[in-house]
């Protein structure tokens, strides 16, 4: 009688919502606390923001945007700024790809083969992480001091941040490449330079190119706003006209920026679709 299984499996209560032994519960509780503390400490004027007065002022503000300034000379200026943005992003990415490759190879951030002691690996990785941790905009603000206002600071800022990102990706790609061809050359007594040029690079080149193109896409978006601190491109015009309350011109610039971002997104989506087919 005792061994007979119950006709119906016993009804199990669901586990309690909070259990002192469950780490996820403590983490969720911590997150909730963080959210509450954030709202409490920031004294946001969210209530004021959703009040009637603020809605009216927002409405007035938006109405000032219309109509956007579409006069010929201004459009030409926007066109030049757009080209400048594109040029900044392209040159910045190119410089970063070269510098990233140099750092990944010359000061090997990558362990090139099993016997490689790679003494420079740890310090180079540290440098790459530092370059990557500081956003483009902060680099641009720092570089303004030595490069002056204008697109040069923006280009160099993009190059520095992207060097950190690409250098790390490149180093990982090189380390993960199959070591067979390189080992074969090394066994014949071929030097490091030739092994790199004829065995390592040909294997990873497609990957490096695709990483660089991906970063270029990100950099176009970044370059559009970099100018807000004075580093050239569309952002600089935007900050300038917004500061002087030229709302019609600001509207045109915002539209141009949106158009550029949308175009880049669409192109990247289309090319991905085309390549995946």
């Amino acid at each position, binding site marked *: 009688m005792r061994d007979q299984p119950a006709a119906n499996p016993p009804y199990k209560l669901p586990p309690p919502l909070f259990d002192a032994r469950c780490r996820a519960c403590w983490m969720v509780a911590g997150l909730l606390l963080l959210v509450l503390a954030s709202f409490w400490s920031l004294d946001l004027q969210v209530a004021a923001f959703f009040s009637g007065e603020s809605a009216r002022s927002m409405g007035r503000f938006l109405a000032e945007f219309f109509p956007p300034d579409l006069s010929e000379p201004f459009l030409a200026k926007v066109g030049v700024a757009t080209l400048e943005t594109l040029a900044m992003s392209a040159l910045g990415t190119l410089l970063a790809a070269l510098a990233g490759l140099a750092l990944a190879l010359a000061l090997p951030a990558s362990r090139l083969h099993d016997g490689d002691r790679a003494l420079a690996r740890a310090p180079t990785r540290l440098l790459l992480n530092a370059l990557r941790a500081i956003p483009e905009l*902060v680099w641009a603000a720092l570089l303004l001091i*030595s490069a002056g206002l204008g697109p040069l600071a*923006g280009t160099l800022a993009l190059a520095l941040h992207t060097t950190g990102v690409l250098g790390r990706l490149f180093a990982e790609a090189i380390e993960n490449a199959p070591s067979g061809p390189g080992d074969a050359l090394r066994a014949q007594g071929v030097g490091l330079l030739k092994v790199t040029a004829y065995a390592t690079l040909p294997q990873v080149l497609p990957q490096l190119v695709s990483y660089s193109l991906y970063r270029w896409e990100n950099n176009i978006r970044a370059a559009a706003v970099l100018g807000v601190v004075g580093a050239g491109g569309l952002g600089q015009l935007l900050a300038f006209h917004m500061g002087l309350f030229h709302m019609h011109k600001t509207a045109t610039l915002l539209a141009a920026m949106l158009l550029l971002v949308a175009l880049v997104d669409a192109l990247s989506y289309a090319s991905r679709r085309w390549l995946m087919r």
Partner: protein
Amino acid sequence: MNVAALPPVDPRLRDPALWPRLAWASAALVLLWPLAVACEFRPWLLFEAENLRVTGRFLADFLPPALGAEFLWMVARETWRTVAIATAGITLALLIALPATLLTARVLSVSALSGRMARGPFLLRQALRWSLILLRSVPELVWALVFVRVVGLGPTAGVLAIALTYGGMLGKVYSEILDSGEPHATETLLRNGSGRLQAFFYGLLPQNAGELTSYTVYRWECAIRSSVVLGFVGAGGLGQQLDSSMKMFSGGEVATMLGVFVGLVALADRVSAALRRVLA
């Protein structure tokens, strides 16, 4: 140089791809030239005596970093504000993203169960999806610039900017995650007459909760990074202090704050990795 003076090259050693390589290299140079002109790329400007002097003085100022008690306390307060702006922004972004996800997810459409979605719901979904894309494609820095004009300097502009951009981003990605999962359980629930919310809570959520959480935590980490940047246009936090210290050329303060910032990013990276491991 006289060509005849060169020693003859063994034809087996000649690079067969020499001419294409030279052609591509020169074409690249020709293409690069206008680019360099367009961004006024004159790196030698960096090494002019005047610029070198200013840069040198600024960099020399980096050491020693400013470590006064009052300054450190201010940095700590602003660092907390940076984290708080990101957290509050993401929370408000969830308020935008969750309803938008419920409305745009294709799996929750009842009419799509039997063939094509009806026209009304389809148009509603498309309209919402496009507005999410619009929210997302305006960079948060531009939102912040606009909101600083409307609500004034301070953290409110930063929180709203993050809420709008990340709301669009989260909403779009959430509905993509829900749509790309296995729809079987949800469809069965819907076919048997459960409501859409019930189908979401009992069909979709258990299946996708891990992925949704991990994406949200990752975005929180990104928001911390971008809330520093937002400070540069006056939206409060570490960025605003960094900006004003840079404008006063006080290298010691800049050095301290850059160090704190790099530490904050590294910490957020660790915390987010731990959270994703435990929650997912």
